[in-house]
């Protein structure tokens, strides 16, 4: 009996200690997402919201779909705020394009005036009025389809004809649009001539040269199925068939650039058959083959990684490399060299709502020593402290304090409505339902003005370079609680500092101007491909640049789309810390050519042109 009593006391202590440990570990994990005032002092940068002061007073409007969706309208019409950066007029200063989504609302193209302010030139340039739902463009072949051309969801810049000026592609819940840039003076709509799809309910797209022929190809990823007319529903069975295993989303388009201004659909021929609900895509060379691969962050399911087999086909390898094991709600795709060792990590955002659903964001990092054919990823988001970001949307890597490591900026928040009422219980109840239930919009409980992960604090994680990120958003100045969707990074004033442009759903566009503590050096590269067959595309999208300094190195790739509905500046920005010189820069151009630059000067933007083939 004594033995049992002693054992009971011992196990009671174990039980009590375990319960206390659960509470303590939970609190410490949550605390890691809160600001660290003491730590912020040494991080060396501050963000100040300055949109209005810069002349930007854009407020996003959401669309209004079929009345059969009225009870859940805030969540089905919850996207469309986007931002895409480009120097469209080649004046050396980055401009940006933002989409609107309300019927008859206007998109804006903010031209950088060079004095810290911007002016909207979208209407003058002919790229403003893209959101129409009316009778004027009825399509006899698709009489069920919404009249008009739908509303904008995002945009991505790319110089598809290699004339040196970035052209504009706008993806929509509707007819995607392509505008040719007329030397920065105006835009010409070339949608029909280019041979783009007549309709796609898409939330992501990117430019990349998958076959290295020197011309940018276009990847467009559908979210809702193409045959869904959100304004005139034929049925309410339009919702995902599962919260985490849905395969009834929109089709994808891989449009090959023929080089003459037209595109051909090569999607199925190249092996891309996904019908998942894609929300973000990024093209980068993940396997070191020299050809850009595709990573798709999918809502309601696992992500997909399409390995590019020398431009002849794509092979979905997500499960093989370990990133497609756990289905979540993917909403972002960004890449960064978080350890400064040349490995490109993929950051995919998901949902974390305390007390309900803790998916955690994913930071997929290639395992060290993995060969090209044996690539395997491990999720280090928890280890590095970048996993809990609320209902996370767009995120970008960038060195905000020029200390030589890549930090991370994340926006979040789904539906901010009633401050004291939550839709989460109803959402969680329907989300677990079988496809016959969850797939029908009429079964979804009414939102009735309630919030769903609304009013959330944003995250700015500073990378200490030693395997840990610290959250400093509140301290460095990011204090808004709008429903963030897209964030793009750009050095808007050519100061050697990365600013953040944030597009909020049904909210104002924000510009966080970055002030970096003096002492941190930097270097930037703006690459220009030859634009000839056999060379690289003019925008050098797909180029890989490794900067080596004082025994350190960092790799970045030039991408078109990055994050969620966003595009960063084309130039690559590297912080150098206290180092005022760089040893070497190694550029691998999209064409496959390699170029080495020794001892480039710091604190300078270097414009590099692709050398001729030798």
């Amino acid at each position, binding site marked *: 009996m004594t*033995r*049992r009593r002693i*054992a*009971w006391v*011992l*196990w*009671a202590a*174990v*039980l009590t200690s*375990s*319960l206390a*440990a*659960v*509470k303590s*570990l*939970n*609190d410490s*994990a949550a605390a890691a997402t809160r600001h660290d005032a003491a730590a912020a002092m040494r991080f060396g940068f501050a963000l100040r919201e300055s949109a209005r002061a810069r002349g930007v007073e854009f407020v996003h409007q959401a669309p209004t779909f079929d009345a059969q969706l009225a009870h859940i309208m805030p969540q089905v019409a919850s996207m469309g705020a986007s931002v895409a950066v480009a120097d469209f007029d080649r004046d050396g200063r980055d401009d940006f394009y933002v989409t609107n989504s309300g019927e008859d609302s206007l998109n804006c193209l903010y031209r950088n005036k060079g004095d810290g302010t911007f002016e909207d030139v979208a209407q003058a340039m002919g790229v403003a009025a893209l959101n129409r739902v009316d009778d004027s463009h009825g399509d006899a072949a698709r009489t069920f389809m919404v009249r008009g051309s739908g509303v904008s969801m995002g945009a991505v810049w790319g110089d598809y004809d290699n004339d040196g000026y970035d052209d504009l592609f706008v993806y929509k819940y509707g007819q995607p649009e392509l505008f040719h840039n007329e030397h920065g003076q105006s835009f010409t709509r070339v949608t029909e001539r280019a041979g783009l799809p007549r309709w796609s309910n898409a939330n992501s797209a990117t430019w990349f040269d998958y076959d290295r022929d020197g011309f940018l190809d276009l990847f467009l990823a559908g979210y809702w199925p193409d045959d869904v007319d959100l304004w005139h529903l034929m049925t309410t069975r339009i919702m995902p068939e*599962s*919260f*985490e*295993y*849905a*395969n009834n989303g929109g089709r994808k388009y891989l449009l090959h650039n023929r080089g003459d201004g037209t595109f051909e659909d090569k999607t199925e021929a190249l092996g891309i058959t996904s019908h998942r609900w894609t929300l973000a895509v990024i093209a980068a060379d993940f396997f070191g083959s020299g050809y850009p691969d595709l990573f798709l962050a999918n809502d309601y399911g*696992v992500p997909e990684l399409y390995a590019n087999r020398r431009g002849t086909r794509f092979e979905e390898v997500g*499960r093989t490399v370990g990133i497609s*094991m*756990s*289905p979540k709600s993917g909403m972002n795709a960004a890449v960064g060299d978080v350890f400064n060792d040349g490995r490109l990590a993929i950051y995919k955002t998901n949902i974390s709502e*305390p*007390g*309900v*659903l*803790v*998916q*955690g964001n994913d930071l997929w990092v290639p395992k060290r020593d993995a060969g090209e054919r044996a690539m395997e990823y491990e999720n280090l*988001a*928890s280890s590095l402290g970048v*996993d*809990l970001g609320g209902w996370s949307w767009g995120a970008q890597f960038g060195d905000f304090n020029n200390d030589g490591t890549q930090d991370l900026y994340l926006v979040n928040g789904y539906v901010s409505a009633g401050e004291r009422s*939550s839709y*989460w*219980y*109803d959402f*969680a*109840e*329907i*989300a*677990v*339902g*079988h*496809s016959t*239930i*969850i797939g*029908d919009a*009429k*079964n*979804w*409980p*009414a939102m009735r003005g309630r919030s769903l992960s609304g009013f959330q604090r944003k995250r700015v994680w500073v990378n200490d370079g030693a395997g840990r990120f610290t959250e400093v958003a509140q301290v460095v100045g990011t204090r808004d609680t709008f429903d963030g969707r897209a964030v793009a990074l750009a050095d808007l004033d050519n100061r050697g500092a990365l600013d953040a442009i944030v597009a909020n759903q049904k909210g104002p566009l924000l510009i966080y101007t970055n002030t970096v503590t003096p002492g941190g050096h930097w270097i930037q590269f703006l690459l220009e491909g030859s634009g000839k067959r056999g060379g690289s595309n003019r925008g050098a999208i797909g180029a890989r640049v490794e900067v080596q300094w004082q025994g350190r190195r960092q790799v970045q790739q030039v991408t078109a789309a990055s994050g969620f509905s966003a595009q960063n500046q084309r130039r690559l920005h590297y912080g150098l810390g206290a180092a005022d010189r760089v040893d070497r820069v190694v550029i691998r151009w999209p064409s496959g050519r390699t170029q080495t630059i020794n001892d480039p000067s710091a604190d300078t933007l270097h414009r590099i042109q692709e050398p001729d083939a030798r």
Partner: protein
Amino acid sequence: MPADVPVLAPAGRAGSAERTRRGALALDNRFLPPILITCILLTAHLSFGILESYQRTALAIGTAILAELVMGRLTYGTWPHLASAYITGISVGILVRSPFFWPYALCSLISIASKYVLRFNGRHLWNPSNFGLSAVLFLAPETVSHLSVQWGNVVAPMVIIWLLGFAITWRVGRLHISLTYIASFLLLSLVRSEITGTPWPATVAPITGPMYQLFVFFMTTDPRTTVSNARWQCVVVVLVAVVEMILRLNEVIYAPFYALFLVGPTALLIDTWRRSQSTPNV
């Protein structure tokens, strides 16, 4: 969810002679639930990849088995049967959702420890995994959630799991508990729909998910933590459904776990006390 195995007469010490007669190949009822839950796990994961990761599930199972071995040996001086611990571990591995590793280990440890600590008249009061899961869900809302999605969208696997579950609970004499709970849930989901104005398909949706399959077949039927009389077992499980409804009307996400957490031990305490009163002292 459950960590204890439904046991019929052939199992345990009383059934040892019969087992001997049947021979070494006779199937011990204690192995049925582990076999079922393993089949569910393997089918679901190989088909749909339902696990957070192999490592996390292995950690949960390993912790549960190790804790059972240590606690059982040191408490009773004999090596315990590990079927119960295995079910606890695998249930934790399936039901806990977290990007961290520690919840899997601690949930298993808490579950097993509760069996040895929270006892009355020689019986543990809580279904172990119900206790462990409820504890971590309540104490760690920022980092832990529970399984809350479908495993794919194919009807056939779901039907097979239901049928297998019914067959096994029938074999171990617990089918009436499962059926009573299901009937109660369906009926009360109608009541909730009427009260809240939520479409009935939405209020009934949870029971179409795998979490409820585990809850119905493993947690509510745990023989060690259910009352002794079959009729009262039905009454208790109806009460579980009623408390769950009340919690759901108050928008408590983890309502079924908390309902069983509250009702199960209370019923067991009353049952144990009542039986002790009716048993003449020797």
